[in-house]
C-alpha cells in the first residue's frame, strides 16, 4: 500500500501514525515495554505540546497580522472594481433617461429580508420586465422581476414566511425604488442555523 511506503515506521514495526493516534491516551502495555515506542511517544508528545503553544501564541500575537496597508490596498481595489450588476433602464425619453443598478435594488431587498426574523437574504438577481424593456417608458411604469435566494432558520414556516417576504419586497420596491416588482421568485437554499 502507498501508505506503507510513505509512513515512517519504528523499530518495532509500528507506524508513527499509530503512535500519534493514541498520544493523548495512557501508554499501552506494548508501548510501556517497547523502547522505540516510548521514545517516539515522548518526542511526539513534546511536538504536540509545542504545536499547541505555537497555535495559541500565533493566534494572539499582534505582530502576526498583516500591516493595515494590506487591507487598505485590497479594499481600494475592490471599490475601484465594485460590481453593481446591470443598470436597469427604468425611464427612457428622447432627452435621456434613468437607470437603476441591480445592486441598488438588491440592497433594498436585503433591508427587507433583514427585518424579518429567521430570514437571511443571499444572492439576488433583478431583471427589467421583458414586456416593457424596449418600450419608451414614462416614469413610474417600469416593472422588474426579482430572483432572490434566502437561507432560513430551521424552525421557520417556509410557505408563510416566503409569502410574507414576497409582499414585503413588493412594498419596499414600490416605496424605496419607485418600481413595480411584478414577479418575485424566492428560493430557499439553506438553513443557516444547522
Amino acid at each position, binding site marked *: 500500500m502507498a501508505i506503507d511506503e510513505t509512513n515512517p515506521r519504528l523499530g518495532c514495526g509500528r507506524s508513527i501514525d499509530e503512535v500519534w493516534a493514541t498520544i493523548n491516551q495512557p501508554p499501552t502495555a506494548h508501548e510501556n515495554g517497547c523502547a522505540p515506542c516510548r521514545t517516539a511517544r515522548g518526542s511526539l508528545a513534546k511536538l504536540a505540546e509545542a504545536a499547541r503553544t505555537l497555535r495559541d501564541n500565533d493566534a494572539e500575537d499582534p505582530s502576526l497580522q498583516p500591516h493595515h496597508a494590506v487591507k487598505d*490596498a485590497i479594499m481600494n481595489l475592490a471599490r*475601484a472594481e465594485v460590481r453593481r450588476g446591470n443598470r436597469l433602464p427604468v425611464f427612457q425619453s428622447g432627452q435621456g433617461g434613468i437607470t437603476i443598478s441591480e445592486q441598488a435594488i438588491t440592497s433594498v431587498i436585503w433591508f427587507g429580508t433583514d427585518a424579518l426574523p429567521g430570514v437571511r437574504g443571499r444572492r439576488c438577481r433583478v431583471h427589467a420586465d421583458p414586456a416593457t424593456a424596449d418600450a419608451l417608458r414614462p416614469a413610474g411604469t417600469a416593472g422588474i422581476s426579482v430572483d432572490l435566494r434566502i437561507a432560513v432558520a430551521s424552525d421557520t414556516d417556509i410557505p408563510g414566511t416566503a409569502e410574507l417576504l414576497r409582499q414585503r419586497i413588493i412594498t419596499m420596491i414600490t416605496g424605496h425604488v419607485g418600481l413595480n416588482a411584478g414577479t418575485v421568485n424566492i428560493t430557499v437554499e439553506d438553513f443557516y442555523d444547522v
Partner: protein
Amino acid sequence: MSEHPLEARLISSDLIADLAARTALDTPGVLRLEPTLKNLLIHLGKGTLQNLRRAETRTTPARHDGVFVTVHHGIADVQLDIATDIAFAALNVAQAVREQITRTVSHTGLTPGRIDISVLAIEHPPTAATARPPTPL
C-alpha cells in the same frame, strides 16, 4: 443675436459638470455622487498593487467624480451617477434631479441635450451612530 454661440464657447463642460453636481446634491434624497471605476482608476493612478499599498491611499476623488458632461454646438449632454436615500423612492429622486439639471443648464444659455441619471446605490444616510471615517468614495 450672436449671444448663444459666444456663450457656448465661454461655458466649459467643467462648469456645467460643477453646476450639475451642485444641483444634484441640492435635490432632496440625493446622498452623494457615485464615482465610477474609470474615474477611480484615473484617480488612483496606474500603480501596481504594491504601489497602491505603499502610497497614500486616502486621498479624495476628483471634484467631478460621477458627472460626465459634453458640450457641442451649444447643447450640453449630462450623465450623472448618484446614490439615493432609502427614505425616498429612487426613481422620483432621479426624475427630480433630471428636471432640476435641465432647468439649471437652460439658465446658462446652453440647450439641455440628453440628461441621463443612474442610481447606483440606495442607502440609509450615514448617522452619528454608524458614521465611519470617510472612505475614498
